[in-house]
């Protein structure tokens, strides 16, 4: 039976990063994913650590933060490792659609709720949002596109907002994907640009829902900016995420081009474990159970949403390798009394505990599986939602896991 150098289980940003890193190191990689992963939901810009104020130096800020949070996944590689991983991520995207910080360190970008969120690397289609101010920004809502409410955004940002409809296409009932596709067509976006221009009152920045094209976002940006003579930016909204989908497609295209085998749509349901090693995993595509073998494995199956962690009425488990999950003592302690708390609900900090090399360890610190590494949000001791560190954790740990796995 064919043996791969590496099998990555999970097609979220962590799994994709691990796979790509391994491929670039010359490994023969098999990637398995039950579904598209959270890139299609939230991935739009790259959040690393929201606590670092805009304008502050990321290196020192993150390093200090890590020192105060020694159990955090970021402690496995520190800022140097995070930075290297982020650099590699950026290299995957060739100009003009690139990811970069908007200023020094973090920036604040407007969201679909009209709030501001700290983020680090932005795609070029979002950069202009980081500098937006109430006086010079116009928010464009698209009538009938309900997952972005322009009035909510402009109301909270206290700037002007306009809702457009394009009669020829009738935007009612169109999905985000349908809109993004229309944007990829020059005549459509030219018409939109004209419509926006006719509503402008001297604004220098235009905010739109994050549907600025799937295939050609840079072209969409270019057209709109040329016609409106303003800076244009897209604003993250309710799922699905078009910017995240672009990232997913880029990774997939890259991996297939480089000869990796990409199996999307079915879960790995069991692992063959012997003597502290994983000998193979089994993919379930009913009625078939297909075994795959590799020298090494990376588990990047996500948290509850991705199925990496499962919770019944009593406890949380990791269903594939059956790794122990660090978790609160009982279900009664999973969630706090109030929804909004300064700290994350304890259940969100549950996960797999690893050593510095991202290998899973037990409570005594002994390595459970020598040829398995763990990456991404499934790791314990982080609160990616509150920290605004989801993408950073995925990229940094995915990168490290692959490098360490292939070094051994």
């Amino acid at each position, binding site marked *: 039976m064919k043996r791969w150098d590496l099998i990555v289980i999970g097609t979220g940003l962590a799994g994709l990063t691990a796979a790509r890193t391994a491929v670039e190191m010359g490994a023969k990689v098999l990637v398995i994913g039950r579904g598209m992963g959270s890139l299609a939901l*939230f991935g739009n810009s790259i959040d690393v650590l929201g606590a670092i104020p805009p304008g502050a130096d990321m290196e020192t800020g993150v390093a200090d933060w890590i020192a105060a949070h020694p159990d955090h996944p970021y402690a496995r590689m520190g800022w140097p490792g995070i930075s290297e991983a982020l650099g590699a991520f950026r290299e995957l995207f060739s100009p003009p659609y690139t990811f970069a910080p908007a200023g020094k360190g973090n920036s604040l970008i407007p969201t679909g*709720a009209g709030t501001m969120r700290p983020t680090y690397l932005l795609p070029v289609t979002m950069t202009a949002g980081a500098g937006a*101010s109430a006086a010079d920004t116009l928010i464009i809502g698209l009538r*009938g596109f*309900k997952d972005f*409410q322009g009035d909510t955004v402009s*109301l909270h940002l206290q700037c002007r907002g306009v809702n457009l409809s394009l009669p020829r296409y009738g935007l009612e009932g169109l999905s985000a994907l349908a809109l993004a596709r229309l944007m990829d067509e020059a005549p459509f976006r030219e018409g939109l640009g004209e419509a926006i221009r006719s509503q402008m009152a001297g604004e220098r920045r235009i905010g739109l829902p994050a549907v600025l094209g799937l295939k050609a976002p840079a072209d969409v940006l270019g057209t709109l900016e040329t016609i409106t003579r303003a800076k244009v930016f897209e604003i993250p909204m309710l799922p699905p995420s078009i910017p995240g989908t672009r990232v997913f497609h880029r990774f997939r295209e890259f991996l297939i081009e480089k000869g990796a085998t990409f199996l999307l749509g079915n879960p790995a349901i069991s692992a063959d474990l012997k003597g502290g090693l994983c000998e193979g995993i089994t993919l379930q595509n009913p009625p078939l159970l297909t075994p795959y073998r590799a020298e090494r494995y990376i588990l990047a199956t996500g948290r509850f949403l991705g199925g990496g962690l499962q919770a019944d*009425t009593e406890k949380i488990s990791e269903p594939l390798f059956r790794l122990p999950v660090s978790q609160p003592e009982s279900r009664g302690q999973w969630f706090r009394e109030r929804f909004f708390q300064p700290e994350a609900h304890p259940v*969100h900090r549950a996960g797999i505990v690893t050593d510095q090399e991202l290998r899973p360890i037990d409570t005594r610190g002994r390595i459970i599986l020598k040829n398995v590494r763990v990456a991404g949000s499934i790791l314990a001791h982080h609160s990616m939602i509150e920290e605004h560190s989801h993408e950073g954790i995925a990229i940094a740990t995915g990168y490290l896991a692959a490098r360490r796995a292939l070094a051994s």
Partner: protein
Amino acid sequence: MDLQTEVLIIGGGATGAGISRDLALRGIPSLLVEKGDFTSGASGRNQGLLHSGARYAVNDPEAARECISENRILRRIAPHCIEDTGGLFVSLPEDGHEYRADFIRACAAAGIDTTPLSPGEALAMEPKLNPLVIGAVGVPDGAIDPFTLVVENVRDAEARGARFLLHTEVTDLICKDQRISGARVRDRVTGEEFAITASRIINATGAWANEILGLAGLSMGIALSKGSMLITNTRLSERVINRCRPPASGDIIVPNDTVSILGTTSLRAEDLESHEVTPEEVSFLVDELSRMIPAIKGERFTRAYAGIRPLVQSEQTHDDRDISRGFTLIDHQSRDGLEGLITITGGKLITYRLMAEKTVDFICERMGLDVPCLTHLQPLPGAGRGHTFQDRLLRLRHQTPAFRRELLCDCELVPRETVDAILREGKVRELQDILHRTRLAKGTCQGGFCVYRLLGVLNERRKEEGLGSSNRILTGFLEERWKGIRPVLWGTSLKEEELIESIYKGLFNLAPEATAPNEGGIP
């Protein structure tokens, strides 16, 4: 802005609304005040069961007869508030055949039509039933929508001149010379305070009866009983499923539109706000009800909620005519020497009309009026206008540009025009008022997507009116929603929770106003 009326009704549950309508139909003007929205109390926190009365047939034949009588009346006057699901009383091996035999006899005696069914027939009708079922009995149970029922009563009453003030709280009773002549109230939204004078005041506040009585220095013996319920993501049965045994906790499953409501428990509640459903209650309901439908063990629940029922401790009634076993009507003049105030409490949702009838009969007598009750004859305004949830599915057909029907709630298929219509009526003052009046946020994701969209729709107006941030409303909604979902967070519901938190706290960086950075705008 003081107001005047003939009869002041305190409490906007089924009882209060029913009284208002009954008065209106007899030509007596009234004004109803309610501190929240309609059905804030037990009327809005029950299982939505249109009892056939069969449940009481063996132990309480009077109550059973009353139920079936009201059941028939409601079917006649409010068919559009009812889904005629039918019901089954299901016997499991441990229940034996004896009770079933008594049950059938007792139902016949109470005038309730029953249809004995074999296990095979029962399972053919309801495939999810426990295959070990030893028999079943068909009864004329149904599912009723309390909110629509109340709102319809209100609409009818309003059309005949009755008035209603929501979000209006009674802060004091106006008492002089041993006579209650009105109340002082406060509008909870605007803060405005004013007085309402009336010849008669009816305390129809259900479990809150003592809150009002206390304002006049009175009290009555009320114990508070909490009943908890679980809502499933999908509808488990076409009919109401009851346990054929002496009435106990955890023996009813009521279908409600696209979901099922499992219930209920009966625990002493500390106070009126003790709506928390405990993990023990959740486990109990799952264990007990999965005896009837085994799939419940692995079922996904979207919400848990509890209602507080008032249990009236034995009252010395001074007027035997008014008292039926199920509810209590107190004339405070006879009992406490205070003129002008009566209290009506207890009872079941579906006997509201009868309670109202008795109350208004009493009032008429006191007023020297000989006007008969018409509420059992006159259909409610929307009657005849059938509505099934299939109607909502039908709308998906028209999701074309030509029809422009924008769906706000994907889970429950609620289009924007439904919300627009409610807003046009101009009566809603809070987000929950809109949510009460539609199926929005009642589905799988419990408002995770649709409330954002709804607020967007509202923000269009808010901008025009110069109102501020709606995120306070959004965070308030999410906090309120939390109470219902927290008790059932495991399995798929926990995944849902991770999704919602990732969107609102993560992607949107939403936080309650006090701690949110840059809430007021951008620099």
